[in-house]
């Protein structure tokens, strides 16, 4: 489903970087941050990545996903809290609605590990 499209976006992002590198290095790992308050399921993303990178410049590269929890800020309590996804989003202490999301909406490529001739930095 939409993990296919997300993977496409991921590959394009990495490819843009790769195209800019003069020696087109062999990429060994792609590090991705996925917030828990997104529509992306890491396991599906792993599967789609493996399938969609076959026979491409990313063949054999490992996708490393770091999941980030949903953290919201309650203004009334002046504190951060972790809403329970699927159950309760309001502040568990004062029941104020979830308004400010501090983390959990991330979907980003953090960094890439690649092999290259030593001496080149």
């Amino acid at each position, binding site marked *: 489903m*939409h993990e296919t499209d997300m993977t496409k976006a991921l590959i394009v992002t990495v490819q843009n970087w790769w195209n800019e590198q003069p020696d087109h290095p062999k990429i060994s790992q792609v590090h*991705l941050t996925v917030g828990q308050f*997104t*529509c992306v399921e890491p396991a599906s993303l792993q599967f789609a990545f493996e399938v969609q990178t076959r026979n491409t410049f990313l063949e054999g590269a490992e996708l490393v996903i770091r999941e980030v929890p949903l953290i919201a800020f309650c203004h009334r309590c002046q504190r951060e809290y972790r809403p329970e996804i699927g159950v*309760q989003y309001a502040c568990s202490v004062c029941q104020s609605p979830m*308004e400010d999301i501090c983390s959990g909406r991330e*979907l980003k490529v953090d960094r890439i590990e690649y092999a290259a001739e030593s001496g080149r930095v």
Partner: protein
Amino acid sequence: MHQIFDAALEINLLHANQEGADHNREHFDRWGITCLNVMSSPGAGKTALLERTLAALRRELKIAVIEGDMTTELDAERLRQYQVPVIAINTGRSCHLDSKMVSGGIHRFAQDYDPAEFDLVLVENVGNLVCPAEFEVGEHAKVALLSVTEGEDKPLKYPVMFQEADCLLITKIDLAPYLEVDFNQIMANVRQMNPHVTIIPVSTKTGEGLEAWFEWVRSQTNKLRLAAPVSTVH
């Protein structure tokens, strides 16, 4: 000898889509068009809502529809009866519209019509509660539909869609007497993650609640008109 290197990218995966969406919105702004992105699960009543909306508002507002559908033109055909431009986009395998597809639709629209004459573009997204929430298309506001037959828990289970919505229509309320549906619970579930959303219960069958929806649509178009620089107001 090979050595392992590290490159920091820090790039959002949706960056390209977001840029495209911003670009689409610039087009709409230049033309004085308000764009609403209408989203829901399949069968919640998006097309029926658009039919009623076109029938009621097409004489006071100049409206066009961008219709996303995975494989068919059935919905587009239904809407063409109302003599407004309906630009059909077959999304194929993709279960949502993205900004690039909508950009293609906008260009087709601009070839055949003078967009500056229009007030409102309604985008009917693909029926899906998950993906459309992540892919902005250039809209000024998001409209989500939830039919009473889907159950009170859906906002909790598909939170991103309901958290992002500016307006939530609870549809098919004529069926409520036959179901054990708790409106207060639906509203409470939505409001705990989106306290400022406008919630309008409607029935396209009986017409109940539709006037409030039309009024909300009008308020959205006025908002853009009032925000436009004086020189572009005709």
